[in-house]
């Protein structure tokens, strides 16, 4: 009985669409039957099943990406009612209608809501966000990591490269080559690891180049937007301290 009353309600969506990477974007309205507990992904699935817009015309189904559906993979990041976030964790009951959905345009748009986050993975490669453990012989076990530090570093390791912090940052755009908050925080994570620490200077030096840590303008939108609650601005300030120290050490030849 409850379900019949619920299904008579419709949820309104205004979706920004784009047919190809080069073409212009446009908006299309959709109405999706309401179901209790639905989120933006389930609404997009409904549109995929019945690709009719609000005017009743059949249209190409909206493209989007999703994977884990529990806010740990970062694939379904999009701008929902003006704020970048994961669509799988965006409950329709908690959103103002009509729900406006746009792709995160800081990244190249592939189609509709699908974006290309390659720059983030390139950034991780650039800052060497890994721990080199391979040698030509057995290097033996590394130093132990204190449990307290491990628990603290675990918070930084929650980063899922979702791109929300880059979308929110006013200094990540086509006029700058700023690497963005996510990769900066990963430098702090890998520099905190007892084995990773052995390559600390290499990582710091990658941040002391064009588009490195200098790109941060302290708007601190990143820390307010991060879905994982990573202390991004603390990471950046800590790395400001580390790079400043490294700068003087290098000059003075210590």
């Amino acid at each position, binding site marked *: 009985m409850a379900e019949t009353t619920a299904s008579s309600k419709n949820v309104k969506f205004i979706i920004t669409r784009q047919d190809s990477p080069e073409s212009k974007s446009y908006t299309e309205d959709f109405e999706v039957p309401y179901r209790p507990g639905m989120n933006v992904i389930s609404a997009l699935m409904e549109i995929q099943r019945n690709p009719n817009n609000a005017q009743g015309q059949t249209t190409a189904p909206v493209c989007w990406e999703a994977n884990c559906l529990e806010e740990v993979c970062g694939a379904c990041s999009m701008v929902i009612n003006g704020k970048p976030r994961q669509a799988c964790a965006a409950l329709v009951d908690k959103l103002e209608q009509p729900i406006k959905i746009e792709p995160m345009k800081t990244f190249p748009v592939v189609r509709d809501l699908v974006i290309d986050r390659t720059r983030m993975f390139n950034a991780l490669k650039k800052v060497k966000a890994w721990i080199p453990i391979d040698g030509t012989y057995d290097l033996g076990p590394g130093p132990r990591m204190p449990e307290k530090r491990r628990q603290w570093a675990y918070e930084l390791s929650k980063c899922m490269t979702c791109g929300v912090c880059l979308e929110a940052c006013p200094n990540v755009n086509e006029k700058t080559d700023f690497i963005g908050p996510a990769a900066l925080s990963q430098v702090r994570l890998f520099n905190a690891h007892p084995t990773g620490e052995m390559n600390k200077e290499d990582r710091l030096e990658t941040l*002391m*180049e*064009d588009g490195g840590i200098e790109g941060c303008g302290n*708007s601190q939108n990143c820390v307010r937007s991060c879905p994982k609650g990573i202390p991004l601005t603390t990471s950046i300030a800590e790395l*400001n301290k580390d*790079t*400043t120290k490294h700068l003087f050490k290098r000059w003075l030849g210590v």
Partner: protein
Amino acid sequence: MMFTVIEFMKTLHTLKGERPLMNGYYSRKLHSLLGIIPLGAFFVEHLLTNYQAFERGKEGFDSAVNFLNSMPLVFFLELFLIWLPLLYHGVYGLYIAYQAKNNVGHYNYSRNIRFTLQRITGVLTFVFVIWHMYDTRFQVAIGQITHEQLGGVMHEMVTNPLIFALYVIGIISASFHFTNGLWAFMVSWGITVGPRAQRISSYICMGLFVIMSVMFIMALTAFRGSEFQEVSAIGEVIQTVLS
């Protein structure tokens, strides 16, 4: 005017892409440092000199100006501690302002609002400083007025309500830009790292902003006093400066 500035910034931007003149990290670090030392330090000194006009009147202001001009190698002090840093900080700052994609509409958080204000007040201060230097230091340099007549020039200017209002805007912009810049400097050099340190330093810096703005406006009001009125023939000179 704005169009030329934007075109200039675009040229700077493309030039940077082809062959960077200086690694971005160092150029940005230098920008940050110069904003505090020496420019911020000079700004505080300037406030204290002006405040003498409020506290001790014309005599106090004139003796403070005389003290500054009696410093050894004053020309080189001005060149290396004011003009060159000002030029670098101003031009590079315009480039930084041009690069930002301000988004306070979607992210109306206080730090983000201050990020945008930092850029707006930076541009306003840049324009204000050029105007202010043209009327004062530049006129001294070309021999139109002497240091002793500066108080009179200021009197003539700020008794005009429009100029007074523009000066108040310029002063508030400059004070905000310096104090908020001090907050950002402490983050950018890794002095205030954690959220608590950054919160407390923002209270201190915003408090400083209010104190400095009020003191500057008090000094400005003092220049409206009749004791700064020049009786000699320099009134004519001031008229030509103003027009």
